[in-house]
């Protein structure tokens, strides 16, 4: 049943021009970033090679590319997730799912996996760019996969938060802007964290809480190839939390209010 809803969601996405437009625009922007970064790298390559332990192409091209992809998708994922529930509420098609013998959990997981499927396609297309470098040079595959895994987890978190936001309102646009706001806030929350941290530098009590909450903070190590189970646990917790919120919210839609 979950698979059915997920597949329907994915197919519906491709029936609308939105999915195609998103794929195209993301690809164009990232492609431009990729090429310009490659250009810069070619120019500085000779000077760098003199240095001991010089950063390679994976550090200078691939990591920034995938980091950039996360930022671009921070804007784009809310546009994808906004439809999930709020559009169905607006078009009053949600009653089809509500009256079918399907549980709320199945509805939410189905919708979530559908959007996740689309994001995986998107990531696969982005991954083609760094992988194309294999033709000409050696890249650090371990770092690439760590970064891709990081990107997948970040996007999966975006989607979960966006899905929850979409259950809150009947207006897709409001769902989009509020999930964008939430994600951006969680992205930059470590700004405050870092300045506080500077003040508390003497206090050796480890990490600042705000920094820990930042989506970015857990992504950066993965871009560098540092693979920590704490970071993965953070993303998985994040996803589960918002999915549970979304299920509860969907249940609540039926209650008197």
């Amino acid at each position, binding site marked *: 049943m979950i698979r*059915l809803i997920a597949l329907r969601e994915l197919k519906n996405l491709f029936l609308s021009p939105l999915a195609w437009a998103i794929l195209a625009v993301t690809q164009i922007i990232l492609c431009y970033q990729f090429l310009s970064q490659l250009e810069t790298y070619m120019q500085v390559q000779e000077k760098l090679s003199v240095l001991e332990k010089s950063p390679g192409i994976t550090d200078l091209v691939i990591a920034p590319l995938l980091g950039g992809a996360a930022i671009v998708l921070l804007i784009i994922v809310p546009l994808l997730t906004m439809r999930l529930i709020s559009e169905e509420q607006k078009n009053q098609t949600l*009653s*089809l799912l509500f009256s*079918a013998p399907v549980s709320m959990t199945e509805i939410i997981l189905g919708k979530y996996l559908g959007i996740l499927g689309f994001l995986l396609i998107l990531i696969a297309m982005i991954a083609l760019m760094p992988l194309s470098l294999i033709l000409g040079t050696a890249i650090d595959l371990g770092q690439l996969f760590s970064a891709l895994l990081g990107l997948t987890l970040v996007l999966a978190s975006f989607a979960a938060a966006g899905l929850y936001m979409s259950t809150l309102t009947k207006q897709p646009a409001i769902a989009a802007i509020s999930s964008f706001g939430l994600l951006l806030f969680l992205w930059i929350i470590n700004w405050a964290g870092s300045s506080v941290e500077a003040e508390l530098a003497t206090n050796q009590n480890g990490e600042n809480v705000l920094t820990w909450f930042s989506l970015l903070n857990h992504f950066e190590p993965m871009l560098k190839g540092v693979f920590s189970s704490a970071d993965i646990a953070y993303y998985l917790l994040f996803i589960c939390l918002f999915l549970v919120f979304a299920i509860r919210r969907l249940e609540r839609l*039926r209650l008197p209010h």
Partner: protein
Amino acid sequence: MDSEVLIEVNQLSRHYRTSKRGSKHDNKHSGSRDGYAIAVDNISFTLQRGEVLGFLGPNGAGKSTTMQMLTGNLAPTHGSIKIAGMDLMDNPIEAKAKIGYLPDTPPLYKELSVDEYLIYCAQLNRISKGAIKSAVNMAKERCGLTEHGRRVINNLSKGYQQRVGIAQAIIHSPDIVILDEPTVGLDPIQMIEIRKLIKELGESHSVMISSHILPEIQTICNNVQIINQGKLVLNASIEQLTQHMQTQNLHISCTQLIDIHKMTVLEGISEVKQDNNHFILTCTLPAAEEHDEEHEREAAMIKTARQVIELANQQQWGLYEIFSEKQSLESVFMSLTTSDLLLKQGLNID
């Protein structure tokens, strides 16, 4: 007993907060208390297999809310709903599998074709893989959609979209079919077809339909419920209802002015209303307690009509039109929904 109870609703109520603006219900507040409006107030009824139940009420009476609760789209504030013996709250999935529901707005994914949509609905209702094709074909055939399978729903006319909505509700041949105003937006021919379909459905399933169109209810339902301001004001079978329609109207048109007084003294006429040279005579008929007495009422009506014609000839009023109008469900509906008087007159038959 082969009458099997499929829906059992017990003291069902639904309130919602009025203090909150932009309430999500189409229902107008039906009386409020302590900041709560009551959309549905303490309704109890049962639906049996083979029964076609008509659900009537003015806008905002709570028809759609009740139907939404029966189908698990809304949770009731109080009360219980049992679908084929299963509690809708405790076993929602098993209970919902027994229901086909068409909401007031058909839940269509408009970018899909009719076939794609119906296949999806069949899968959602857990129809086994092998049976999907025949289920979709059956539903399409019953709703007259056979030739439209490959068309995108968005390009269909409203009437055809409505049919897709009905097809969606009957695709898994559920025991209970709940249709919220199924004939809205259909042309007269389609309406007749859909009514025929509903009658057919009523033979093997239980059907519950809501409607504003009273003759529709009269022709297809065998039981009627009238709901007003969230309360059930009438629950009766069609036969019981017709027995209680004690008055009948006689319409006459004359070229000359007539003496209303002379008309009122005639036997069996209780009231005369004038509309230019058109007159509406309200006739009181003997109450038919038994079904067989129907023809006696008929005879009484003919007698009154002949009296009127004779009188018109005598007085040379220039009578050129006369016809009788059976008091319809409409007038019962009107009197029940404008006041609760009839309830007190003992029209509430259980």
